[in-house]
């Protein structure tokens, strides 16, 4: 009998717990749902005395209108180009140096690695002023170069991939070396294919950080209409009187979409990647 009441109590408790969780999820999702809902409303129904999720119609046209209201097509292409090019540089440079730190022996390796890690401590905000001056000196102000290269060399990627390379059994590589494979051969044919999960994690995280980057483009890009990225384009809306909130939400939702898809598609990978690479703190 006692066990019976025990199970009932446990069932009630888990039921309450689940209900609460669903409420938490809805509250958490609220802002995003509201953004999607607003993006589908006619302009004059964005602000209503009582909150409504839906307007008088589902106005998909808003998504097309956002692209004519502001050059969002251009912004998306710019963002895509910058994020892909930047990610390519990050992945290439970090995997090469990560391999050197993980597998090659050379004098001063530990000291150099500490120096690499030391650069992680420097916040971007310290670097923006001299970086702007450097871009001025190179003639790169308001250019794609300036959007791609300055932040494409980060010790984070080196660290992430090095940790992964270290988990790959050395025997695999030795076998290849005995078969006459040099460091480049082992790197490209053995290490890189084995490191695919870590490379995927690095690629996705890097792409996403380029995609969302705001402060630097804000500083370095003057011709927003021409070289602006999506966050810059969105920020153009602020301060405008009579902001077209429905169009802006449409553009915001579109800006979020690729990252949401990446997170969902690679969910298992991301969690495992976080753990594998020691970002889990343990």
């Amino acid at each position, binding site marked *: 009998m006692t066990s019976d009441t025990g199970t009932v109590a446990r069932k009630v408790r888990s039921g309450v717990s689940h209900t609460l*969780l669903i409420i938490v*999820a809805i509250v958490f999702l*609220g*802002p*995003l749902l*509201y*953004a999607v809902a607003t993006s589908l409303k006619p302009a004059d129904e964005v*602000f209503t*005395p009582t909150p409504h999720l839906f307007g008088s119609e589902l106005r998909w046209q808003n998504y097309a209108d956002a692209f004519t209201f502001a050059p969002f097509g251009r912004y998306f292409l710019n963002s895509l180009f910058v994020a892909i090019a930047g990610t390519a540089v990050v992945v290439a*440079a970090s995997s*090469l140096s990560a*391999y*050197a730190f993980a*597998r*090659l*022996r*050379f004098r001063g*390796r*530990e000291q*150099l*690695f500490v120096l*690499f890690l030391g*650069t992680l*401590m420097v*916040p*971007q*905000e*310290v670097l*923006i*002023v*001299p970086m702007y001056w*450097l871009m001025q000196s190179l003639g790169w102000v308001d250019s794609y170069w300036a959007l791609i290269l300055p932040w494409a*060399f980060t*010790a984070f990627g080196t660290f992430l991939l090095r*940790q992964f390379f*270290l988990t790959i059994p050395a025997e695999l590589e*030795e076998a290849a070396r005995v078969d006459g494979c*040099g460091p480049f051969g082992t790197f490209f044919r053995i290490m890189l294919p084995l490191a695919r999960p870590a490379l995927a994690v690095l690629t996705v995280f890097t792409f*996403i950080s380029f995609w*969302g980057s*705001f402060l630097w483009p804000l*500083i370095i890009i003057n011709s927003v209409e021409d070289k602006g990225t*999506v*966050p810059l384009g*969105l*920020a153009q*809306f*602020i301060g405008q009187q009579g902001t077209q909130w429905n169009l802006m939400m449409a553009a*915001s*939702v579109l800006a*979020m979409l690729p*990252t*949401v898809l990446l997170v*969902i598609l690679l969910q298992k990978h*991301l*969690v495992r990647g976080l753990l594998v*690479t020691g970002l*889990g*703190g*343990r």
Partner: protein
Amino acid sequence: MATDTTTVASPRDVPPGGAPAGRRPALRRDGRFAGIFLAPSLVGLALFTMFPTAMALGISLFDWPVFGERKFLGWDNYSHLLNDPVFRRVVLNTALFVVLYVPLNVVVSLGLAVWLGPAIKGRQAFRVLFFIPVMTPMVANVMVWRLLFQPDGLLDSGMQSWFGIDAPNFLGSSNWAMPAIVAMSVWQGFGYNFLVFSAALDQVPQSQLDSASIDGAGPLQRFRYITWPMITPSIFFATTMTLITSFQVFAQPFILTQGGPGVSTQTIVMYVYNQGWQFLTMGLASAAGWVLFVIIMGITAIQFIGQKRWVHYDV
């Protein structure tokens, strides 16, 4: 997952037949290859991180307009900052943001991670769900919240129609603007720590919790004496990272309030931006950036010293 750099290096390939003398040539050959492997990162980091870090300190000692003549000032920019009421206010604002944001973030993410313990179905879905705003562009997230906080926005109209009261003008009131920025930031950022904590909680062996349970330990005791010591490294990691990033807050106040009303929500990074690219005084901007750097290094150092008291690495 701590990895020792010195012990994991692979054994070298020894040239066949040349065992005794083989080590040094192999090493030298490795060294030459290492140069090629390292070159892109090394050149990039030197040019775009190490050199600018030093250069930032240099620029901060000058009257350095974006265009025009530069003049050496020594430490004048720093004494100017110390005496600038706006800068002092900006430092206080940033500190207030950190003091409100970091504990809230950790409590929310840890609380939810514990609640959504291994037993709950659909936990993976929550991990992904909470992680979404961490990854979506910050500017887009902030735009959405600007609409929420707007007079006649969702919060305002909701309070009016359900409770019959006007919501405060969140972004226009000096009492509400900072809490509004903190609320938005917690919503956006706690998913990362949630993922870190829920991964750490997975590592706590259920058998220990069960046997403590049999010995009569309640849920609070089990958390305090078993779970907590085991997850302290993750909590240390999460709080340190969150502290560092929260001092760098920019996009949220920049878009929600533009630092207003007045300068009541202006942060250090906004100050750097304004000095550098609104008033075009790069020297002052660079000095403010270095002050931020020193604050961050100081806080991190305190964290690392303090961790000995409460972080358990071998449980």
